[in-house]
C-alpha cells in the first residue's frame, strides 16, 4: 500500500498539467496529504517485527533480459524517510499556497521531486533506485531557475551539475557492482562477497557520489548557493528531503553493498564530516543573508548525519537516520520562516536590515515559529535535533572520541550562529524604523495566512513529538539498522 505514495504523487503531477490552473494547488495539497496519510497509516499499522528487515511490497520483472525488476520494499529506515518526505511535502505545498507565476508548472516540478524521493526510499532494485534518484535532479533545476530569487540561474546550474556529477559517480559504482555480482537486487548484492581490493576503490566512488548530494565537505558549495537561489518551496524540499537522499543512499547502497570498503574508508568519512560540521558552522556565523545562514547550517547538520554513518555502530547509524528525519523537519521550518514569512513581507533577508524592523512585534507568529525552529536546530533537549545529535555523539564516542570533542566545539558554534540569526532577525534593537515593513502601506494586509500557520504547526509538531519521545522512531530504526550487513 505504501507504494501508492509514488503512484499517487506522479499521477497528481500529470493531472495538474492537464487540468485548469484553479485546481493546481488543491491537487498538489491532496496528493501530498495522501502521501503523508499513507506514511502514517503504514507507521501505525505495520508490525515492528516486519520493519526489522527489508520487507518486499511489490516485485515484478521489468526487463528480464538484464535482470531488472520493479522491486519495492520497506523497513524502519525507509519508513522514517517516507514520513519525513510526507511531512516536508505537505508543508512545502502549504507554504507555496500563493505561488501565482506559472502555477501548474511549479506544482508539477514539485510533485516530481517528491515522487522521485518516495521512489528512492522504497526501491530495492538498483536500476529503479537510480532512475528515481536521477529523476529528482531535473525538476530541481527548473524549480530554482524559473521560480527562484537571488542569482537563480547560476545557483540552479551549479546545483544541477554538482548533483549530476555525483550521479555519474553513483552510476559508475552501481554498474561495477551490477556487472560483478550479476544482480541489481540490493538484498542479493548484500549477500554477495565482492573482492576487497575492488571494494577499496568502488566504495569511495559510490559513497562520494551520494555524499555530494548530502553536502559533504568540500563538495558542499552547491548547497548554500542553491538554497539561497531557490524559491521557499525549493529550499524546503532541498534541505528537507533531497539532501537526505544522499545520506540515505550512502547507508542503504554504498555501505551495505561494499561493507569492507566502508570499513577501510570510514575514518576518512568521519574526518570530512567533522570538518564539515565545524567549518560550515563557522562560515554561518559570518553570513549577512539569513538564507545563507540556514544554508550553511544545513551543511553543518548533515555533517552530523555523515558522522553518524561513519561510526559504523548501530547507535550512531540509527542516530544518523533520526537526524535525517529531524533535520528534514527543522530545515524546512527555518527556510519557511526565512523565505516565506519574512522575505515575502520585508523583501529583504539582510540580517542588518531585519534587525531594525522590530519584527517580533509585527509578526509574532513568525517570531514564535523561528524561536522554536532555532531551539530545535541548536539541539535544545525536548526537540528532535537533540535526540538525534546526542544519539550520534554517543555512537561516535565508541569509535572516534576525538571527533566528539571537536564536534562539541561545532555545536557551540551552531548555537552561536543560530542565536545570532534569531536575535538579529526578530529581536533587534528598535532604533528608528528603517525597514520597509512598518512603513509599507499595504503591510497590514499581509498577516500570516492560515496555510502558513498550518504548515508551520505541522512541522513544529513533528519536531516536538520526536524530540519528546524519540523511541517512536528509534524503535523502528534500530532493528532495521542492526539487520544491515556492514555491522556484521
Amino acid at each position: 500500500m505504501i507504494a501508492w505514495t509514488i503512484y499517487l504523487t506522479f499521477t497528481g503531477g500529470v493531472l495538474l498539467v492537464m487540468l485548469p490552473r484553479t485546481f493546481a494547488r488543491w491537487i498538489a495539497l491532496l496528493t501530498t496529504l495522501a502521501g503523508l496519510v499513507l506514511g502514517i497509516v503504514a507507521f501505525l499499522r505495520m508490525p515492528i517485527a516486519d520493519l526489522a528487515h527489508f520487507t518486499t511490497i511489490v516485485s515484478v520483472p521489468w526487463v528480464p533480459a538484464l535482470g531488472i525488476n520493479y522491486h519495492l520494499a520497506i523497513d524502519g529506515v525507509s519508513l522514517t524517510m517516507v514520513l519525513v518526505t510526507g511531512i516536508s511535502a505537505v508543508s512545502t505545498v502549504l507554504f507555496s499556497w500563493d505561488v501565482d507565476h506559472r502555477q501548474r508548472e511549479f506544482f508539477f516540478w514539485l510533485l516530481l521531486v517528491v515522487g522521485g524521493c518516495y521512489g528512492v526510499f522504497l526501491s530495492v532494485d538498483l536500476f529503479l533506485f537510480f532512475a528515481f534518484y536521477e529523476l529528482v535532479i531535473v525538476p530541481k533545476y527548473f524549480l530554482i531557475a524559473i521560480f527562484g530569487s537571488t542569482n537563480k540561474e547560476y545557483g540552479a546550474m551549479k546545483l544541477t551539475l554538482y548533483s549530476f556529477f555525483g550521479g555519474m559517480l553513483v552510476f559508475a559504482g552501481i554498474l561495477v557492482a551490477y556487472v560483478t555480482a550479476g544482480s541489481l537486487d540490493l538484498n542479493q548484492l548484500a549477500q554477495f562477497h565482492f573482492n576487497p581490493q575492488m571494494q577499496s576503490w568502488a566504495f569511495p566512488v559510490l559513497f562520494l557520489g551520494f555524499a555530494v548530494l548530502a553536502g559533504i565537505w568540500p563538495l558542499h558549495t552547491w548547497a548554500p548557493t542553491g538554497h539561497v537561489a531557490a524559491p521557499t518551496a525549493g529550499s524546503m524540499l532541498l534541505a528537507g528531503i533531497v539532501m537526505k537522499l544522499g545520506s540515505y543512499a550512502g547507508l542503504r547502497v554504498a555501505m551495505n553493498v561494499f561493507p569492507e570498503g566502508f570499513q577501510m574508508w570510514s575514518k576518512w568519512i568521519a574526518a570530512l564530516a567533522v570538518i564539515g560540521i565545524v567549518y560550515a558552522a563557522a562560515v554561518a556565523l559570518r553570513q549577512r543573508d539569513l538564507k545563507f545562514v540556514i544554508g550553511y547550517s544545513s551543511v553543518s547538520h548533515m555533517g552530523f548525519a555523515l558522522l553518524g554513518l561513519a561510526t559504523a555502530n548501530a547507535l550512531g547509524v540509527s542516530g544518523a537516520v533520526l537526524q535525517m528525519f529531524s533535520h528534514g523537519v527543522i530545515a524546512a521550518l527555518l527556510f519557511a520562516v526565512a523565505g516565506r514569512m519574512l522575505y515575502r513581507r520585508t523583501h529583504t533577508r539582510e540580517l542588518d536590515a531585519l534587525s531594525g524592523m522590530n519584527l517580533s512585534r509585527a509578526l509574532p507568529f513568525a517570531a514564535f515559529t523561528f524561536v522554536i525552529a532555532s531551539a530545535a536546530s541548536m539541539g535544545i533537549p525536548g526537540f528532535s535535533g537533540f535526540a538525534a545529535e546526542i544519539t550520534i555523539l554517543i555512537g561516535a564516542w565508541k569509535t572516534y572520541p576525538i571527533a566528539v570533542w571537536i564536534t562539541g566545539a561545532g555545536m557551540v558554534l551552531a548555537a552561536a550562529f543560530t542565536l545570532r540569526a534569531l536575535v538579529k532577525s526578530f529581536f533587534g534593537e528598535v532604533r528608528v524604523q528603517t525597514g520597509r515593513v512598518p512603513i509599507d502601506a499595504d503591510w497590514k494586509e499581509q498577516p500570516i495566512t492560515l496555510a502558513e500557520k498550518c504548515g508551520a504547526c505541522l512541522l513544529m509538531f513533528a519536531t516536538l513529538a520526536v524530540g519528546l519521545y524519540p523511541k517512536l522512531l528509534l524503535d523502528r530504526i534500530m532493528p532495521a539498522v542492526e539487520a544491515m550487513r556492514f555491522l556484521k
Partner: protein
Amino acid sequence: MRSLASTISYLELLKLAFPEVIVVISALVVLGIGLTSRRGTAVSGVSSAKPPTRAVDTAAATGWCSLAAALGVVIAIAAVLMLPRNASLFGGMLVITPLTSLFKIICLVLAFFTVCLARSEKALRHMGEYLAIILFATVGLMLLVGSEELLMIFIGLELLGLSLYVMAAFDKTDVRSAEAGLKYFLFGSTSSAFTLFGISLIYGMSGSTGLVVISEKLAGAPAQPLLATGIIMTLIGFAFKIAAAPFHLWAPDAYQGAPIPSAAFIASGSKVASFVVLGKIVLVGFGPVHGSSAWHAMAAGWSPILAVLAALSILIGNLVALAQTSVRRLLAYSAVAHAGYTLLGLVAGGRDGFSATLFYAVIYAITLVGAFGVVAVVRSESGGDDLENFSGLAARAPLLAGCMAIFMFSLAGIPPLAGFFGKFYLFSAALRAGEDHGLLWLVALALFGSFVSLYYYLIVLKAIFVDQPSRTAPALDDVWSDLLQRITVTVLAAAILFFGIMPGILASRILAAMP
C-alpha cells in the same frame, strides 16, 4: 559465385527483395506525380494571370507526393513482415534474418517520419523529387542492412551516400545548403574511396567478399600489416558515416545547412543502418582479429581502433558542443559524442554489446528526428535556429517545449527516458565484456562525457523554459499551420517516454534477433 548464373532464380530474388522493389516503385510514382504536376504549374506560370491557383496546384501535388511516399513506405513495412524468417541469396549478397527484417522495419519507420517532416517543410521546391530521393536513400539503407557481402554493402553505401548528398544540397535558395552538400560530398566520396581500397585489400587476402568466408580465412591467417591496413581503411569509411571523431568535420555544416528533413535523415536512418553494417562487418567478418582494448591487456585488432575512435568522439563532441549557440550545430556535435557512446557496444563485442549498440542507435535516431522536428517548427516561425529563437518557447508553444525537454533529457540520459536505459545497457555491456572491468576507462570517459553533456542540453532547455520570449518572436499558437509536424513530434516524444518505461519491448526484440 562460380555457378551464379545457373543457380539464380529471378522469382526467388523478386520475392526476397520485394520490400525494396516496393520502395523503388513508390519512388518512381512520386517522381511521376511531381513531374506531371510541375508541368501543369509551368503552363499556368506562363500566363501568370492566376497565381493563387498555381499555389494551390503545387500544394495539392505536394500532398499527393507525400501521401504516395508514405503509403509506399507503409506497404514496404507490411512486405517486410511477410518475408521468410531466414534466407540467403548469392553467397550473402541478400540475406534475410530476424535482425535484417527488424532493422529494415526500423529504417522504414524512420523514413516515414522523415517524409512527415518533409511534408511541412515550406522552403523546399520540387517536393516530388525530394521525396523520391528520400525513398532511394531508404532503399540504400535496406540494402545495407540486408547484406553480408562487402560489394553489396559498398553499393548500398554509395546509393545511400549519393542520395544524401543531393538531399543535403536540396535547398537551392540557401547558400548554406549548398555548402552542406558540397562538404558532405567531398568528405563522403573520399572516405568511400578509403573503404573501397580497404575492401579490395581484404578481398585480396581472403579471396572472397562474403563476410562469413572472410572470417573463416582470417581465423587461420597470421597477423600482417596488409591486413591491418585493410581493416583500418574499411573502418574509416564507416567512421565517416557515423560521424565519429576525427572524421566528423562534415557533420556540423551538414546538420546546420541542410534542409531539416535531410539533416534528420542523415542523423537517424543513415546512422542506424551504418551501425548495423559496421557491427556485422567487425563482429562477423573481422571476428577473429578482435584484439582487446582492456586497459591492462591491450592487443592489436579492430577493437582498440574503435575504442580510440569512441574516446575521441566522446571528448571532442562533448567539449566542442559546449561552445555552440546554434541548436543545430549543437545537435551535430552531440551527435559526434553519441556516436562515441554507441561504439562502446561494438568495442565490447558479443551479442550483448551489439544489441546494446543497436538499441542505443535506434533510440538516438528517434530522438534526433523528433528534435529536428521541433527545430523545424521554431525555424519556420521565427526564422532561425539559434538559442535566442528558442527563448520562451515554453510560453509560446507548451507542447513543443515539453517534447523538446523529453528529447534533450533523453539525450542527456535522464530517467525515465529511453536514452537512460540505452546508456545503462551500453555501459553495462561494455563493463561486462573485458574481464576484471577492462573497459572501465572507456566507461568512465563516457560517464564524464554524459556529465559534460548535461550542461549544454540544459542551456537549450534554459532558453526554452527560463528565458523570456524576445519581443520579435511570434507566438506559435497557430496549431493548424503545421499540425502534421506537431503530431509527428508528439508521437516521437511519446515513443521515447514509452521505450524509457518499457525498454524491454525493444531490447528483447533486438536481442532475440541477434545471430
